[in-house]
């Protein structure tokens, strides 16, 4: 089946792209070939004076290149020639004697925007779904179909670098202001306006665009010294943001520089070359892997297809416990899932406080202009509160987020069973208590499961869903789907203490405590791990999580898994001193007026140790990282995760494990199980049994096995 169909009317050929059998358009090699042939045909068709390119998909113009094809690239040369072929097609569009107008509604990303940029005129709809951007760097590559060359020429180096280096999509209004598009119209008249533009261009020749850049723009984008300054600042920003771990933004920066200083031809050559190099790097492979994993998770209900039957979508949820966590869940559910949220707590002032906290999530969006005032008003009206059971009878899903105590949670679940409808799902938000224990006294344990949110809920992207042995497929799928509607990446994990994220986090945080007991400077520990690629180091993380919370969780994990997960005494010494971390302004670090100041060196005395300024940073890194890798292997062998994919996504989105490393299990594959085992034994020789390699790792090392089958 062809991807394009053509309607010719009054000299204008309307070319509609509608890739068969796909929800969105992507530019595969096959689609590109078909388009190439189509251009030849239309160029030779005397009845055609101009073309309009439009999409047949709802709310999507072109989502980008077909990323699946990237995974088959073996060498840099192959990738470079793929880029070259794409560039040639875009050049052909740009040089077309018959003007081509892009009529853009919906997402116009990557190769889709590059194609639009090659067109002679761009009309976009003023619809919130219309977003334009070049997200390639998020996959560890750069725009390879002329985007690094055409965008800076169209809108200037500054604005182009802003978009390319961050990989962020812009909304249609902003894109029009930047000069990416030429006209902004209501969706209903998109085709008509594009048709008219095409006819006009065919008759009058190319239009001259007025520059919208202003004085600063002319100085910065229009002169060589100005551009040098722009490049310098951009490079500095990229370095500080990527920590040197991501080569793509710098490659894009280079390409833009070459293109603007040495001309389009040199720029295109540079773009293809750098694209080729990047496409086969491990960084890019890992980032593409994450992209596919999250895409797959969006379709994964956590149960075998069809097992859950047909599910009625949840239109109202209940949240029990109006504390920070409950309010976070409530606000995020209203914001993203746009469902009614009924929040309940034991007394009304707590309910009121929780309502205010939940609404603050919406207020924040309003302030940042992510919501309009009417949208804000509408979403805020979704959230209500009560001190009784009213409003719970019609909730499809109820989430309890009360105090982390088994008996309290059992009591809440028991009470909820009477308050909610018979088919409502009851979820417990817990980070440490086994769901089976919470469900043990339920009359209908099949509808009880765990939903482990991370704090702050509105910001943290991961959600762990924990069925116990008897949880029904229907309950699992209901919770997974709802988690996704809340905007979360959802993994279904096993009902063992710590589940997945806290399980692999525990030895890592413990090791940080042990290092502190040895006198290692906290700032050095943190620096080592941010250099490794974590967004924050483990000591900072302890402060953020709260030392009381971390200490309690560590105790639970120690109890469950024994000596291997024995925490150091450091955190306990801290909590005994009344230090709870950032939340009370007293932790490992010092805090003042809402900001973090330097490390608080007085804490070493609390644990009776003296600070040792000289540490072997490489050794510290190994101790921290390998404690996590080993625990990941142990947990995977215990069946905590359904697949290495889920485990790696959980670590990346739940802990901030460096995405370019692909996740802990992917990292074990990259390093090689045998090498991981060797390093663990070395660590064990120096520090004892907690580094004993997981039997599954030893076994994998023996047979040369991997977590992921592909090489």
């Amino acid at each position, binding site marked *: 089946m062809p991807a394009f169909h053509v309607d010719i009317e009054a000299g204008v050929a309307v070319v509609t792209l509608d890739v068969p059998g796909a929800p969105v358009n992507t530019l595969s090699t096959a689609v590109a070939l078909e388009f190439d042939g189509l251009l030849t045909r239309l160029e030779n068709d005397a009845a055609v004076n101009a073309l309009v390119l439009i999409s047949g998909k709802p709310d999507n113009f072109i989502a980008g290149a077909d990323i699946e094809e990237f995974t088959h690239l073996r060498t840099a040369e192959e990738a470079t020639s793929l880029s070259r072929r794409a560039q040639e097609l875009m050049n052909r569009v740009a040089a077309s004697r018959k003007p081509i107008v892009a009529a853009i509604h919906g997402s116009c990303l990557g190769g889709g925007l590059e194609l639009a940029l090659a067109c002679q005129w761009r009309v976009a709809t003023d619809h919130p779904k219309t977003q334009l951007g070049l997200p390639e760097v998020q996959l560890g590559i750069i725009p390879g179909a002329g985007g690094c060359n055409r965008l800076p020429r169209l809108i200037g180096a500054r604005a182009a670098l802003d978009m390319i280096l961050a990989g962020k999509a812009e909304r249609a209004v902003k894109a029009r202001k930047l000069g990416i598009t030429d006209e902004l119209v209501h969706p209903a008249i998109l085709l008509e306006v594009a048709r008219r533009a095409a006819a006009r261009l065919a008759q009058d020749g190319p239009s001259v665009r007025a520059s919208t850049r202003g004085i600063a723009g002319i100085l910065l984008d229009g002169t060589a010294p100005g551009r040098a300054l722009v490049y310098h600042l951009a490079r500095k920003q990229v370095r500080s943001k990527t920590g040197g771990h991501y080569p793509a933004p710098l490659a894009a920066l280079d390409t833009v520089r070459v293109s603007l200083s040495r001309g389009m031809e040199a720029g295109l050559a540079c773009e293809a070359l750098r694209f080729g190099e990047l496409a086969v790097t491990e960084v890019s492979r890992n980032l593409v892997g994450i992209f596919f994993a999250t895409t797959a998770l969006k379709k994964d209900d956590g149960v075998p297809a069809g097992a859950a039957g047909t599910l009625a979508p949840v239109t109202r949820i209940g949240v029990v416990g109006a504390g920070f966590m409950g309010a976070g869940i409530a606000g995020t559910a209203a914001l993203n899932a*746009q469902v*009614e949220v*009924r929040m309940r707590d034991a007394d*009304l*002032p*707590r*309910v*009121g*406080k*929780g*309502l*205010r906290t939940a609404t603050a999530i919406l207020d924040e969006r309003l302030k940042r202009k992510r919501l309009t005032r009417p949208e804000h008003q*509408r*979403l805020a*009206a*979704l959230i*209500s*509160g*009560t*001190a009784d059971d*009213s*409003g719970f*009878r*019609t909730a499809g899903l109820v989430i309890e987020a009360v105090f982390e105590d088994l008996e309290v949670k059992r009591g809440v679940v028991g009470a909820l069973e009477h308050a909610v409808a018979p088919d409502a799902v009851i979820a417990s938000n817990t980070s440490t208590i086994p769901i089976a224990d919470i469900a043990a006294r339920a009359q209908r344990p099949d509808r009880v499961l765990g939903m482990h949110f991370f704090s702050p809920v509105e910001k943290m992207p991961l959600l762990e869903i924990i069925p116990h042995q008897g949880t029904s497929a229907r309950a699992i799928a209901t919770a997974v789907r709802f988690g996704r509607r809340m905007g979360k990446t959802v993994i279904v994990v096993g009902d063992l203490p710590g589940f997945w994220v806290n399980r692999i986090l525990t030895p890592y945080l413990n090791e940080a405590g042990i290092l502190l007991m040895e006198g290692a400077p906290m700032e050095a520990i943190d620096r080592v791990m941010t250099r490794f690629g974590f967004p924050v180091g483990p000591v900072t993380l302890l402060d953020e999580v709260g030392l009381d919370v971390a200490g309690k969780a560590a105790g639970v994990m120690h109890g469950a898994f024994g000596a291997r997960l024995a925490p150091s005494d450091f955190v306990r010494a801290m909590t005994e001193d009344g230090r709870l971390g950032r939340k009370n302004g007293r932790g490992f670090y010092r805090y003042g007026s809402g900001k973090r100041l330097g490390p608080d060196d007085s804490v070493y005395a609390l644990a009776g140790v003296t600070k040792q300024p000289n540490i072997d940073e490489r050794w510290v890194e190994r101790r921290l990282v390998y404690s996590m890798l080993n625990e990941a292997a142990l947990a995977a062998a215990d069946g905590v995760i359904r697949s290495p994919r889920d485990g790696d996504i959980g670590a990346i989105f739940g802990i901030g494990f460096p995405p370019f490393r692909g996740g802990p299990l992917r990292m074990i594959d990259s390093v090689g199980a045998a090498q991981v085992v060797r390093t663990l034994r070395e660590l064990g020789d120096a520090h004892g049994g907690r580094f004993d390699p997981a039997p599954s790792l030893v076994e994998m090392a023996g047979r040369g096995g991997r977590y992921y089958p592909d090489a």
Partner: protein
Amino acid sequence: MSFLVTGRRVAIVAGLRTPFARSGTVLRDAAGVVLARHAARELLCRAELDGALVDEVILGQVVPSVLTPNVAREVSLLPQFPRTIPAYTLNRACASAAQALTNAADQIRLGHADVILAGGVESLSDIPVLHSRRFSRTLVDASKAKTLGRRLSLFAHVRLRDLVPVTPAIAEPSTGESMGQSAEKMAKENGISRDAQDGLALLSHERAAAATTDGRLTAEIAPWFGGKGGDEVVTSDNGIRSDTSLEQLARLRPVFDRTYGTVTAGNSSPLTDGAAMVLLMSEDRARSLGYEPLAFLRSYAVAAVDPGWQLLMGPAYAVPKALERAGISWGELGLVEIHEAFAAQVLSNVQAWGSARWAERLGLPGPVGEVDWERTNVTGGSIAIGHPFGATGARIVTTLANEMRRRDVQFGLVSICAQGGMGSALVLERT
């Protein structure tokens, strides 16, 4: 045995309101629309009703906000409803919510609707403050002026006194008499003593305080979460004084006639903010959705008198009419709710109902009936609870329906006086 009662039976399924708060106090920062939406949403939650089942929203509001003139539509655009529920806001002065309820009942009786959310709202903390005619005309002209010079010359004619804002007064446009002055006049013409007025006020406070303590009134209130942190929760009406006494009431100075007057702030209803909602359904729909109706609306009537005579005597006409339409006599009433705008007004109406001369004037064979205070305003009235003009009718109907159920009473009456010489009366029945 129904006489003039025709059509489908209209069930009162549930009612709920915000706390009623003296204007300028705890609800000061909430616009009327916010109060109305709060009460409506909370009623839906408590009734566990799917918003899609509601056919229409009808609200009363006496002093609408210029920003949300049709406040009912803003309520029906709550996210709990589909966006396709028609809604209108009406004004029958202090009987507005009662009118919203009877309009809803008519629609249900006729079969045009099965489920209607009706009620009303008033925020007297949020009233429009107007510019003088002269200044607003200048503003309008200036907005149409084509040149700056012309615009400036227009403003040159504005005098300082034109800039004084005009606050709407509660006065009769036709007579210039304020409502308090009317009440004062009625007290004098009908011989209602200060003691009698203060006695009624005391009864109102005592009974409202008792019904707040035992939870009968608070059960009808959706808690309001106020304050910066949301934790200043208001669960009851703040005008009710549990500690007042005849002595204290007697010490207050008359407001409208400082020398010979008897109407004081103590024996009048205060300016109040609040919203109240009632869920009405056809009997069949209520039962098929599993609701046990609190009561049914049996009949109603409205009437008006010459505002220049005794402004608040409307109920003296409306009540016998409603009873006649209900086909029942006063003696069959198990509970009576009289809106207390002023104690003088209540006692004037009570006097009329019990009077043979009044009956003669209406052409009735005998007096309408004697008020038995043991069965009247048993949870207090508007003097204590407060009186948000547009909402009061819904508050009273809810309280009456709940109390009829509690006492297993067959018939109940609501009587409301309203600005413009109007009166409104509703008869409720059970089973």
